[in-house]
């Protein structure tokens, strides 16, 4: 189908974009990479009155190491993140996740910030920024504010971002020595929406888990930080027994939505299988480090 009628403004500055958001609120949509917005327009699932195109706002793009954090501009394309030496070195979780983000042509256009702003429950980047404890920076006509990823994802496509705010960047703490990360995803076709997936970030000291941020996506209405599984593995050696304990505890952490991809029970089963596999990989990586 064809998109419905809308008005279109190509923003020349962040100030102009947020002024338009301030004026039009929920009747406006930000057009970043458009890889999720354009399908909904073509299928007439959304009918915004105004599209605010931010693709010419170069200030919103780019990756830079700033002290102990990596700044990823919201307009940075997935392909730039995938090819970034800074990300490969300091954010190996995101580097490992990136090939799973859709397909080549979509990664060439889709943006890091767009994925986080949309907060699709099956998307990879929201899970990664949550696992890494990133900070998300929002800008409105009134000013900037920072929101911790822990407080950002609220529900199905629902975030702490207000309608008058533009997500401008993510500040992601670098992965330090002594931490280990694993990303895994199951999809019917490579690059398709996840049936099950996880982004793990563990702190390991002498083979013992000091802390574990275990984030599951493609299950609930938003990325889920598993508290029970975290407790089950904290303070234990990384072995089969502790991996099994974490997978068992998942039953109380996670209630995957039943959808066309499968039932709650099947999708919980898949997350538990992947959990055991991912923790085995994490143990390998911790030993090798």
């Amino acid at each position, binding site marked *: 189908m064809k*998109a419905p009628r809308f008005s279109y403004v190509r923003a020349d500055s962040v100030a102009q974009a947020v002024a338009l958001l301030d004026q039009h609120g929920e009747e406006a949509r930000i057009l970043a990479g458009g890889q999720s917005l*354009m399908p909904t327009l073509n299928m007439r699932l959304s009918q915004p009155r105004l599209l605010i195109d931010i693709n010419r706002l170069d200030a919103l793009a780019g990756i830079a190491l700033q002290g102990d954090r990596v700044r990823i501009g919201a307009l940075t394309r997935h392909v730039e993140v995938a090819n970034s030496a800074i990300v490969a070195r300091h954010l190996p979780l995101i580097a490992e996740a990136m090939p799973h983000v859709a397909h080549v042509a979509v990664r060439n256009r889709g943006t890091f910030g767009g994925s986080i702003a949309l907060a699709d429950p099956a998307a990879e980047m929201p899970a990664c920024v949550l696992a890494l404890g990133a900070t998300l920076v929002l800008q409105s006509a009134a000013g900037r504010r920072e929101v911790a990823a822990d407080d950002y994802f609220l529900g199905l496509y629902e975030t702490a971002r207000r309608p008058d705010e533009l997500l401008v960047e993510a500040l992601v703490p670098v992965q330090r020595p002594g931490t280990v990360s694993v990303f895994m995803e199951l999809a019917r076709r490579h690059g398709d929406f996840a049936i099950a997936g996880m982004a793990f970030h563990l702190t390991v000291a002498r083979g013992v888990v000091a802390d574990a941020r275990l984030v599951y996506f493609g299950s609930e209405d938003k990325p889920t930080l598993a508290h029970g599984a975290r407790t089950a593995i904290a303070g234990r050696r990384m072995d089969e027994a502790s991996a099994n304990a974490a997978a068992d505890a998942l039953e109380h952490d996670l209630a995957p939505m039943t959808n066309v991809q499968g039932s709650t029970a099947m999708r919980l089963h898949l997350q538990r299988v992947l959990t055991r596999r991912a923790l085995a990989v994490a143990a390998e990586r911790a030993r090798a480090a």
Partner: protein
Amino acid sequence: MSEETMQIAVTVNGEAVARTVPVRQHLVDFLRTELGLTGSHLGCEHGVCGACSVRVDGRVVRGCLMLAVQVDGAHVVTIEGLDETGEIADLQAAFVARNALQCGFCTPGMLMTCAELLAQASPMSRAEIRTFLSGNYCRCTGFHAIVDAVETTLTQRLQR
């Protein structure tokens, strides 16, 4: 709401083009209806099938997921332009030799994506080729012959 339009100036297959377009028109409708470049196909029109793949500023994108107004000032290459430059003449020959197309509907988009794979000029396994092409649907060939053609062409280019 009346139909809102905007003027754009874009280079398509090396040729400068200026048009006034509806702001809601996507890139492939513009290429097909305004410029008569019907090699870019519309399959699903929501970013799943890859038949609409075109190159914008050097990278392959979904033509149905970009608005025509967004290519103002950009360089667009369609399958017609890619064919004309001879950049993938070897790949096209391999597609014919391996029978890597049947109905041909997906072929323009498939070739656009394959062109990006070949341009990277790095060795790839058959599994990696399949993964690279995962965003392009073919409903006739079962992909095997397409992977053959890409593998053959890539191997030949890397030996040069």
